[in-house]
C-alpha cells in the first residue's frame, strides 16, 4: 500500500507543478464568467443554458486533465527509464499499474471537485432540495466517470503510445456519448448473431453515457432512483477492476 501511496503522491506533485491544470481552470473561469455576463433582452433568471454549458465544460475539462495525465504515465516511465529503478524496488508491476490508476483517479477527482465547485457557485446559487440531491449525484457520477476514464487510459497506456491512447480514448468517449442510444436500440431490435455481435460491442465499450447527467441537471428533473446509483457504482467498480486486471497482466508480460 505504501508503494501505491508513494506513486499517488508523486503524481499529485506533478499535477500541482505542471501548467495544464491551471490553464484549463483559468479557461473554465473565463468561459463561465463570459457566459454569466451574457444578457438576453434584459430577461432575468435565465440559468439552464449556463448549467448546460457549465456542466459540459466541467466534464470535458476534467476528462482532458484525466486522460492526458494518465495516458502519459506508463509510456513516459518507460521512455525516460524511470521504470527500471522503480521496478528494482520491492514493487510488482501490477502494483505500479494500480498506483498509476489510483494516482490518475485522485488527480481527476481533485480537478473535478475544484471545477465542479466553481460550476455550482456560478450556476446553482439557489438550489432546491431535489436539485441539491441531483447535484450530489452528478458529483458522484462525475468521479465515477473519471475513474472509468482513468482505468481505460491506464489500460491502453500499457500497449499504446500517449498520442494514440489519447486519440482512441476521446474517440470512444464521443462515440459513447453520441451513439450509445443507437447501439442500445440496435441490440434490442437485433436477432441472432447480429444481436450477439452488437451485444459484445455494447457490453465491452465503457459506458460513459451512464455518467452523463447533463440533461437531467440542466432541466431540473428529479434525482435518480437509488437502484440506478447503486447499479452505476457497481458497474464502475467491476469495469475498473476488469481493466486493471488485464492492464496488470499485459504489463507483467511486457518486455522492458
Amino acid at each position, binding site marked *: 500500500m*505504501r508503494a501505491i*501511496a*508513494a*506513486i499517488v503522491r508523486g503524481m499529485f506533485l506533478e499535477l500541482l507543478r505542471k501548467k495544464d491544470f491551471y490553464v484549463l481552470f483559468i479557461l473554465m473561469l473565463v468561459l463561465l464568467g463570459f457566459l454569466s455576463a451574457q444578457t438576453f433582452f434584459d430577461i432575468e433568471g435565465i440559468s439552464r443554458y449556463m448549467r448546460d454549458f457549465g456542466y459540459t465544460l466541467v466534464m470535458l475539462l476534467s476528462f482532458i486533465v484525466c486522460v492526458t495525465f494518465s495516458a502519459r504515465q506508463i509510456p513516459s516511465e518507460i521512455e525516460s*527509464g*524511470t521504470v527500471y*529503478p522503480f521496478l528494482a524496488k*520491492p514493487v510488482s508491476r501490477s502494483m505500479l499499474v494500480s498506483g498509476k490508476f489510483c494516482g490518475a483517479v485522485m488527480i481527476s477527482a481533485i480537478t473535478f471537485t475544484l471545477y465542479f465547485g466553481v460550476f455550482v457557485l456560478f450556476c446553482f446559487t439557489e438550489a432546491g432540495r431535489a436539485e441539491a440531491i441531483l447535484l450530489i449525484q452528478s458529483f458522484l457520477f462525475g468521479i465515477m466517470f473519471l475513474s472509468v476514464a482513468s482505468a481505460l487510459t491506464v489500460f491502453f497506456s500499457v500497449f499504446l503510445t500517449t498520442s494514440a491512447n489519447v486519440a482512441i480514448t476521446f474517440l470512444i468517449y464521443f462515440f459513447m456519448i453520441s451513439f450509445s442510444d443507437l447501439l442500445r436500440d440496435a441490440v434490442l431490435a437485433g436477432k441472432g448473431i447480429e444481436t450477439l455481435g452488437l451485444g459484445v460491442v455494447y457490453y465491452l465499450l465503457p459506458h460513459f453515457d451512464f455518467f452523463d447527467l447533463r440533461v437531467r441537471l440542466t432541466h431540473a428533473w428529479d434525482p435518480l432512483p437509488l437502484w440506478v446509483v447503486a447499479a452505476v457504482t457497481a458497474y464502475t467498480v467491476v469495469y475498473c477492476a476488469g481493466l486493471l486486471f488485464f492492464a496488470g497482466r499485459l504489463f507483467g508480460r511486457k*518486455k522492458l
Partner: protein
Amino acid sequence: MESVIEIRDLFHAYGAGKKKWEALRGITLTVKKGGIFGFLGPNGAGKTTTIKLLLGILTPQIGTLSVFGGIPAIPRTRMKIGYMPEIADYYRYLTPGELLYMYGDIFGIDRKILTGRINELLEMVGISESAGRQMRTFSRGMKQKVSFAQALINDPDLLILDEPTGGLDPIARKKMREVMISLRDKNKTVFFSSHELSEVELVSDRVAILNKGRVLKEGLLSGFLSAKGEKQTLEGYFLEIIEGSEKG
C-alpha cells in the same frame, strides 16, 4: 563465503523468428558476499540484460538465477538491493528530496529515519544545495548523483550499478569510489558494469568479462593483471581477451 548472486546457464533472447537476437547464451556466474565485482564487456555484450534479469525486470527464458537465495521476480527479494541505472531521467517535476522520499517509502523505511537518511545522502553526493529544485532543471551529472543517492536509500546489501560514472565529474567519481569501498568494508557487495576500465581497475576485487552473451573470463582482478608474469593494465588484458574471442 556466502554467495549473493548465483547465475546458472542463463539464456535470454529478444524478438522471435528472423528478428531473434540472443543477448545471453548460457552464462554462469557466482558473486560472493562482500567485495566489488566488475562486470565488463563491449556494447551489446549482455551486461544490461543480465542486470535486468538480476532485478526481476526480465524473467529468465532458460537457466536459473537467484539473488540472496531468492527469485528476483518476487518483490520481497529486492528489499536488500540498490540499483543505479545507466540512464535515468527521473521524475522531472519532483525535487531530489521528494524522489528519495518516494523510493524510501516504497521500502517501508520509517519516516523519521528516512528524512535523516535523505539529508545524509544528498549531502554525500553533493547536491544538498539543489535539494529544493525540480529535477527538470538538473544537468546530466546532477541526475547521475541523484541516481546514485536513490540506489543507496535502503542501505542495500547488494548495490548494482550500470555504467555509473558516465556524466560524473572527477570529484563525484572519487566520491563514488569511496562509497563503494566503504560498502565493501561493511561486508556489502557491489556489482557494477562499466566501460571505464580504469575505474574498474581502481576498485574491483573480482571481474567478469563478457562478450556476445558469454562469460569469457571470471576471477580475481589481481590474477588477471599478473597472468603473464608481468604487470599489465586491465584495458590491455580486456582488449586481448575480446579480440581473441572475436578471432576464435
